[in-house]
Structures are given as C-alpha cells and as structure tokens.
C-alpha cells in the first residue's frame, strides 16, 4: 500500500529530477541569439545576450547590503533571469584593464539586458565569467556601451590628464611601481633584467 508519505516523497522526487534537469539545461544554454558583442578570442568565449538583475555580489551572498550597491566600491554581478545563476562580471568593454562596476552601478537592483562575452573553461563554474559590452534597462530600445570606467577615472584624478593610457598616469599605480619595481622584486631586479636583455 502506498502511504501519503510515499506520495509526498514521489512528488518531491519528480520535482527534484525535473528541476535538476532544468538547471542543467539552462547552464549549458546558448545565449548568443541577437548578440552584437565584439569577439575577443578569449578562453572558451561565447557571445551572450541575456536579461537579469544587477546586484552587489556580497549583498547577494551574505545580506551585507550597503546603500546603492556600495556606491562604486563593491564588485557587482548579474543574477540571470533564465536560471538564477549569479554571473561574476570581470570586465567592461574597454581594452585598457577596466572593470565593470562603474558601468553596472547605475542599474543597481534593476532589471536589465546585457550583451557581451561569457568566458572561462572551469567546469565547476556553471555560469562562466562575463565581459559586459552593452547594457540597457529592460524595455529600453537603446543600448549603452560599457565605457564609463575611464571617464570615472578622469573625474577621480584631476591633474593627471595627458598623453597615453590612464595606467601610465595613475598615481596609485605609479606609487606601487616606485615601491616595488615592475616585477615586484625591487628596482635591482628591474635593472638586472634590463642589463640582461639589452
């Protein structure tokens, strides 16, 4: 005879197997349809256009939630609508070592669409990592290119205008190289390298 308890377990089992199948399918899903992302030739790169919500990653994980997603001091991510996976965003669209927090911040806790590249070959990272190239509020027609980092850098660093990329003029970078040299091993190591590679 099948008891109520067995029926409950049977129902739970069915739901568990069905949903685990859904999760597995979503993780391997193809998000490239409609993507206008620029290809970079990165590790296991996939174009990916999807919708989701911009989140403060630490808030999402722990409940430690300052106002406005940390106002630019925290790393932000995207919880993808299709499968609830937390996507760690490493980069914006700029080519000069720029993160994405400044570009995501205006969309803190908002529903967005993003277009960019999923990267990485770590099997355990089911959602992969993301380079966001374009973003817009859900429902908007126009995309915004993710290129705010250098503008924000210029605002934070008055008096450091000039030729060359920001990282050649950045006082924080310059202070570290001054302190430890280019290889982090002191200026003698820099000098030795130069002498051996003339």
């Amino acid at each position: 005879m099948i008891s109520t308890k067995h029926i409950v377990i049977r129902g739970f089992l069915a739901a568990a197997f069905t949903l685990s199948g859904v999760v597995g399918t979503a993780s391997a899903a193809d998000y490239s349809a409609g993507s206008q992302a620029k290809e970079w030739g990165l590790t296991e790169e996939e174009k990916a256009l999807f919708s989701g919500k911009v989140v403060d990653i630490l808030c999402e994980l722990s409940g430690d939630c300052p106002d406005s997603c940390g106002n630019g001091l925290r790393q932000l991510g995207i919880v993808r609508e299709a499968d609830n996976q937390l996507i760690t965003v490493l980069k914006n669209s700029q080519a000069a070592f720029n993160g994405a927090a400044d570009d995501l911040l205006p969309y803190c806790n908002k529903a967005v669409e993003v277009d960019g590249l999923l990267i990485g070959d770590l099997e355990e990272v089911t959602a992969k990592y993301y380079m966001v190239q374009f973003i817009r509020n859900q429902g908007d027609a126009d995309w915004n290119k993710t290129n705010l980092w250098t503008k924000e850098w210029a605002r934070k660093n008055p008096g450091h205008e000039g030729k060359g990329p920001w990282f050649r003029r950045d006082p924080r970078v310059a202070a570290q190289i001054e302190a430890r040299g280019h290889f982090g091993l002191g200026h003698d190591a820099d000098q030795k390298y130069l002498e051996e590679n003339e």
Partner: protein
Amino acid sequence: MRLGDLLVMGTDRAKTFFAATGIAVAALSGTAMAATKSDMVEIKGEVIDTWCYLSGVMGGPDAVTGSAHHTCAIWCAAGGIPVGVLAEDGTIYMVLKLEGEEPLAQTDSILKIQSDVITARGQHYLRDGVNYLVVQKVVANDGITNFNHEDYGPVPPFSGPKKK
C-alpha cells in the same frame, strides 16, 4: 540505488540521500541562492588578476601570474577588475573585501599585495561554482615567490621596466 528504493525510504532518509547526491541542492537552487551558506576558511595562494588569468587574453596561466605579470596585475586591480586568490589546489577565490575594506576602495591595500603569496583567513561563499572570499585577516604574506619574469619577461611586454 533504484528509484523504487527511494520511494519506500522514510522522509529523513530521503532527505539525507538528496543532500548527499546534490539533487535537492540543484533542484532548489532558485530559493537557496538568497541565503548562501558560508564557512570560515584559511586559504594560502597567490593574489592574481582574475581577468588575465581566466580569459587567456595575455597567454596561458603560467605567464599571467608571478613576477612576470606583477605590473599588469596592479593595472587590473587599480582598474577595478576583481582580484582573486589562486590557492595551491588551483581554486580561485574572488576577493569581495580585504580586512574590512571594500574591494574598490581607493586605499591601495589591495594593490600592495598583488602577486604576493598570502595566507588569508575569512568567510567563504560558494555559488554556481564560483568561490568568493571576504578576507578578514591576511595572516601571512610570503611576498612574490614565483620569479617567472626570468622565463617570460614582462607579460605583457609593455609592462616591463624601461631604460631611463
């Protein structure tokens, strides 16, 4: 174990089975995400630039660590790219806080330890396969131990020292 065997289990035993196999975790991921469990850990590893390491944009992983990549790691950290700790077993921990400081604070603390091998104690979170770390304390810093600039030179080449 057959499906039929599960159906005649008691509820508690069934729960244990689901937890052990991870089926329930996967199935309930949507709701479980809101309260990600954490644990205290002590991790030893190199402080890395996650973008160059994971994307392969500058070459293989051996070239984008250590002294060869030190200046580029500083550029990336100053540029707001997430900093990671590459543990000895190959696991990457994304740093979400460093000794109470937010990761993008302009205090330079996170720049000063780029490429160093540190031992970090803190709160660890795991979600969707990504490991995150809130570093409460850097309990040891061995400095840079990988002198791979001797093999690779500066990576990228334009990050190296120049003659004055």
